[in-house]
């Protein structure tokens, strides 16, 4: 009995540093923020919070066109990014997993590089690449025979551009996950598949993907959750504009707490911002749960 107690104590003692930090730095701020959903409150310098009941929710659901736009944009962005980055990362990992590939270390490092770059720097660099008046991308397109430069960051194309940047920024990360998963697939399975005379597509479909099942499930879940929360690059590149074309849920919530850029004037609305955050989190939570239910099959693929 005593041994059991001391073992438990040991476990809790080891968990304690993490739990304490997690509670104070993750759980507490979330609770602190969400308690303002029933209040009109502008932060430290704005006087006492005013209780307004469900006023923030009423405003959100009946009188906030930007929230609806941000909701739509978030889904477009998440579907675009996840749909683009996962197949690309998977095939890059497949290529780099080949034993006989020369320079695979160099290629891995190159593909992984965007992951370690600051998202804010990425935003600035991509502004230089994509801007319409002297951006490098347009220079090459014009050289290739395009007649008029593309307004990559204009109202129509801005979302496509931030998705491209999102894919570029996430590729290396997911490639490493896939690579780790692929290296756990026993070589014998491929050998016996080869003996059965499978082609390349059958090899992937009947051997690789089923063996990756549980890993794939986690990678997709991570990709979905991260895509919903991506705001840094968008914040630097377009600030959610032009005219809300790239405004996403979490960026929209963020701007009620902090100014997006030093020049922008913001009226802090902690209460309303907390409400937007809560509803956004619930939406991401629902999407994740739906995904987990739908993807249960992935665990038992083989």
């Amino acid at each position, binding site marked *: 009995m005593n041994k059991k107690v001391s073992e438990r104590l040991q476990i809790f003692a080891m968990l304690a540093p993490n739990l304490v930090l997690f509670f104070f730095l993750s759980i507490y701020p979330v609770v602190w923020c969400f308690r303002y959903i029933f209040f*009109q409150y502008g932060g430290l310098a704005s*006087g006492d919070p005013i209780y307004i009941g469900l006023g923030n929710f009423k405003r959100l659901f009946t009188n906030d066109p930007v929230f609806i736009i941000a909701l739509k944009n978030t889904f477009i962005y998440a579907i675009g990014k996840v749909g683009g980055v996962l197949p690309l990362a998977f095939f890059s990992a497949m290529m780099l997993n080949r034993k006989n590939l020369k320079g695979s270390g160099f290629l891995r490092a190159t593909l992984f590089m965007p992951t370690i770059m600051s998202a804010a720097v990425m935003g600035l660099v991509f*502004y230089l690449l994509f*801007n319409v*008046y002297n951006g490098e991308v347009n220079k090459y397109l014009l050289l290739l025979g395009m007649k008029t430069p593309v307004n990559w*960051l204009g109202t129509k194309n801005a979302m496509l551009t931030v998705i491209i940047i999102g894919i570029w920024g996430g590729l290396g990360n997911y490639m490493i996950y896939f690579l780790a998963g692929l290296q756990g697939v026993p070589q014998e399975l491929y050998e016996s598949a080869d003996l059965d005379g499978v082609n390349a597509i059958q090899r992937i479909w009947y051997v690789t993907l089923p063996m990756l099942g549980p890993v794939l499930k986690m990678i997709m879940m991570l990709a979905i959750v991260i895509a919903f929360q991506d705001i840094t690059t968008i914040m630097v590149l377009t600030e959610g504009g032009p005219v*809300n074309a790239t405004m996403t849920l979490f960026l929209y919530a963020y701007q009620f707490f902090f100014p997006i*850029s030093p020049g*922008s004037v913001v009226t802090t609305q902690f209460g309303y911002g907390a409400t937007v955050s809560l509803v956004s989190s619930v939406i991401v939570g629902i999407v994740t749960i739906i995904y987990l239910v739908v993807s249960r099959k992935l665990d038992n693929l083989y």
Partner: protein
Amino acid sequence: MKKVFCFAIVVVLVALVVAGFSGVSAEEKTKLTIWSMSRADLSFIDPIIKEYNETNMDGIELVLEIYTDNFFQAVDVAAATGGPDIIDLPNTLSVFTNYVGQGYYIPIDQFMTEEDKALWGDYRIEGITAYKGDLYYFPTVATTGRLIYNQDIFDRVGIENPPTTLSEMVADAKLITEKLSGEGIYGFAANFKSPTGALLRSMDFMIELSGGPCQGFDFAKGQYDYSFYTPFVEAYREMFTQGIAFPGCESLDIDPLRTQFAAGKIGMYISWSHAEPGVYATQFPTDINWNGATIPLIDGHEKASQSVIGYHGYLITKDCKDPEKAWKAINDVFYNPEYIAAYQEAGLGVIMNPIISATAGTPALLEGKEAFLMGPTDILWPAVPHEVNSQAVLVEGENMYNTIMGLILGNADIDKTLADLTDRYNAAYQKGIEQGLGEPIQIENFNPAAPAN
């Protein structure tokens, strides 16, 4: 041996006493901390403060602490938990308005002499420098909007003078783009990446100078009214959707815009009077021949006045150890006309007070660019309700700048959208009054040419 030991002890004791006394005399000085955001002015101000600390007979020691972007958060925390003795007001009015209602600053009327009143008497403006009638600071320098133009481009296409009306501006921009867009030169540009940043420095001043409301608030009616903005939106929509303006303005930040202007690719744009001369002298040096002019009027209106943002005012906080000494130091150093004149002559800011301005020389930076100095139509306007307390006007849906940006780039019905904007602002304003956060503002016989009188 004993004697030597005694002598040594006496020497040590005497030394300690002397050191102690000199320590006391140093400690007698009242240390007053000033928080400021003006890193760029440090090399100018530092020697002045040093000299003041060494020479003043009042036992005052000023300590200047420079903050960068964290200034606003620092003041936020200071107002709640205690902070500096003096705050140097940057060109963001909320540093004053957010905290004055909570009693964080000390009124200065009690310290002012007749002489001070004669010099600064005109600067008691409710919501800007004063709160409930009490005066808190005087802004020493000011900034407002100016039209920035490339004279070389004007010469090439045959434009003699910078435009004075909105329709002239659109016509000039069109002419430049028609003739020179083949070379990548366009008539007009705006930093629309941040609609607030872009329209605050252009549209607001244009509307005020034409006798319209201030940020949408009509002081005479005591209500918001955006109907005045229609011709502005129409003109901008023409420029920004019909290929007249520089391409990509919707994602353009002010610095990339400036680099393109410095490269001679932009005919005109509108920006802050305090910033551009310095930018093209040091940040983006350029060979182009450029200048500034008064911003254009909306067609068919008489010239009234445009508001200025006054800054470098010195606020004494309630945490100040000795407010009287703080006032003495501020008055001797920063409100000293000689200091203010030298500040302008060093090219660091433009003086707002005409009495002091008359005694100061034009800085080398503004030789031939006198339009950047403050003129008779550059005046402090009273604060609009959302400036007095932004929490008292919580607008549901898009704010005025984002709404107008959407109108310029989109194709929604202008009058209908502006009417809706008016309704939303008035609803928020009324709600703020009902909640007791805001107070009704209405000025009888309001004259936009002399808004503060």
